[in-house]
């Protein structure tokens, strides 16, 4: 801006110089605006399905996200600015999520979006944020969001993806020569998990003996079970989510499936385990992004749990809830490092970030912006082994962050 004024003074006044000068004056006049913008609250939009079948998980996400915001404000804000979370109900509907996100961007003038809790809804939000060059931290399992056709330079994927989840779960539950039967929900989530497990099974040398796709939201699984029982499998791998998971495991156990085979799921859900008796889930193995029991070995998990307990009357954070925390907290750290909300600077900061805020070291891979992070393998405890109502799982393994469980950048279509 000072350059403009110098030019004005040192040269004969031409039209071009005058214009430059005017721009300089305008720039100087707008300085107070810039100064005020610096103190402006950092607004983070948070679309999530507060109503509908994933409501329990969504409400946990909101509570964890609010904790991240509170901790930032308690220490005086980020880069001197207060932080505000704007939560919106996306009703688990892609159209609703897109509308709410657009409103957050256009009307509420948010600086970044974090959220969504289903792969399809998440992709709808991603479409909107990509078109508007808006920062987005996605926090729901998806493989598609890593691939080049859906990639947005403004999007960072904080959640696990099916490829890495299934790779780690299979490593700790499949063996060479294992016979695996799959019961899979017939939509994107199930398909991606199935693909991941089969990819891992091939490497391990496990064999697929049966593959059953069930309709999303089915109430009765009894008619799928005779095929599973007669398949000769020693592992039943159930790839579905939410209530489908609770119902299908319950009914499989009723049919005595557990006497013949081990039940493995991609993601063992805290809230679904609570919705069913411990005996039903006993011995069921699955992956997780977070489990509060990590606090015994990991200081960052202990700090996160303690802060959560302090804010929410002694309750503990859950798996999908923790995404709300790590998603918002990593974004805020990057904004602090970038010294503001200017998107390109925040992107650079996120790409360079190394953070350990709840579950060990994490960082975003440069090509697809996938968060490389630890993956847990959990086993559901027997009732008599539970020390408290929240003592649900035994941590079988906590595999530290590694690129080896991800698809390579070139596999995803990125030129390295």
């Amino acid at each position, binding site marked *: 801006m000072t350059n403009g004024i110098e030019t004005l003074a040192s040269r004969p006044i031409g039209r071009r110089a005058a214009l430059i000068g005017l721009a300089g004056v305008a720039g100087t006049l707008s300085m107070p605006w810039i100064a005020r913008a610096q103190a402006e609250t950092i607004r983070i939009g948070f679309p999530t399905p507060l*109503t509908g*079948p994933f*409501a*329990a998980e969504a*409400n946990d996400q909101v509570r964890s996200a609010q904790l991240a915001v509170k901790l930032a404000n308690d220490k005086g804000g980020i880069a001197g600015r207060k932080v505000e979370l704007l939560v919106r109900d996306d009703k688990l509907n892609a159209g609703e999520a897109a509308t709410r996100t657009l409103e957050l961007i256009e009307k509420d003038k948010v600086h970044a979006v974090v959220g969504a809790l289903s792969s399809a809804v998440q992709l709808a939000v991603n479409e909107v944020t990509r078109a508007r060059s808006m920062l987005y931290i996605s926090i729901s399992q998806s493989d598609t969001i890593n691939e080049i056709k859906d990639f947005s330079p403004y999007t960072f994927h904080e959640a696990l993806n099916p490829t890495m989840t299934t790779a780690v779960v299979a490593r700790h539950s499949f063996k060479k020569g294992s016979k695996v039967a799959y019961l899979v929900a*017939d939509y994107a989530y199930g398909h991606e998990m199935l693909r991941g497990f089969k990819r891992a099974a091939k490497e391990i040398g496990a064999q697929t003996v049966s593959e*059953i*796709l*069930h*309709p999303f*939201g*089915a*109430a*009765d699984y*009894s*008619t*799928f*079970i*005779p*095929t599973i*029982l*007669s398949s000769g499998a020693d592992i039943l791998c159930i790839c579905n989510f939410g*209530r489908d998971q*609770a*119902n299908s495991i*319950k*009914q499989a156990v*009723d*049919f*005595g499936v557990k006497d013949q085979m081990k039940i493995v799921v991609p993601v063992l859900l805290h*809230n*679904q385990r*609570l*919705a*069913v*008796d411990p*005996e039903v889930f006993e011995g069921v193995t699955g992956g997780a992004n977070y489990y509060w029991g990590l606090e015994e070995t990991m200081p960052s998990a202990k700090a996160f749990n303690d802060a959560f307990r302090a804010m929410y009357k002694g309750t503990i954070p859950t798996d999908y809830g923790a995404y709300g925390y790590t998603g918002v907290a990593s974004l805020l750290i990057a904004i602090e490092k970038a010294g503001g909300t200017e998107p390109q600077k925040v992107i650079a900061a996120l790409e360079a970030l190394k953070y350990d805020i709840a579950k060990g070291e994490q960082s975003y891979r440069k090509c697809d912006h996938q968060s490389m992070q630890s993956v847990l393998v959990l086993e559901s405890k027997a009732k008599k082994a539970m020390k408290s109502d929240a003592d649900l799982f035994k941590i079988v393994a906590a595999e530290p962050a590694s690129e080896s469980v991800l698809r390579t950048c070139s596999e995803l279509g990125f030129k390295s």
Partner: protein
Amino acid sequence: MTVQLIAMQLFSGLALGAVLIMVALGLSIIFGMLGIVNFAHGALFMVGAYAGLYVAGLTGSFWWALLIAPVMIGLFGMLIERFLIRPLYGRSPDDPLLLTFGLGYVLVEAVRILFGTDGIPFSTPAALRGVVNLGIGFFPLYRLFVIGVVVAVLLLLWIGLEKTKFGLIVRAGSADPLIMRVLGVDISRLWLVVFGIGVGITALGGVLAAPMRNVSPEMGTLVLAEAFVVTVIGGMGSLPGAVIAGLIVGVSVSMTSLFAPEMATIVMFALMALILLVRPNGLYGRAAPGL
């Protein structure tokens, strides 16, 4: 694919049919006798399951839940009939339909507020856990028990409607309420009782389903669709129709699960469309009263 697997699949289908009959029965009775399309059916099913959960928690016994919850919800059904539906008799049949549709939403939200949005565990009673060897394969004891209860309820209904004076009056009342009034029968009291029984049976279905499907505020949504499919295929309001339709749907779903499992839900609706094309009133249906 062995003969044994096919036989087992067929049996699973018949067992599922029994579950579907149980799910549809309340809807069928209320429509058959009163001509009311009860859109709150799914919600009342869910409320029945929650009532069962509540009674089981209070008494510590599944058996008390099975007995008391349907009576509780049946009485609640009578209140609904007396104060909400009765003022609508004699008006367009759309009115009770709209009313029950809205009532369904109110009940689901009320349960969400009272018991939370998460599912709640409902254990299979200890005496009914485990599997039974049928010779062709293993089958859960609890599902065999459900089949038994459905047969017993159907038998009681049949005796009640066909062999008692009360049943005679109910049937006459549903055929021609005006003549019954002229003959001095208090039709409104009769309908109150029939509505209560229908809702009670719906709640019984909810309690029976709870150990299989878990309890959640949304558990009635799919039930409403299943119940309508069975009732429409059987012929609105026909009890034998509901039984035959339940079994046909169960076996179709089961056989589809064997060959094209991802089609297992859609096949119900395809079957319904097909049967409606050939027999617009369903298998055993008469032209719907007032519709």
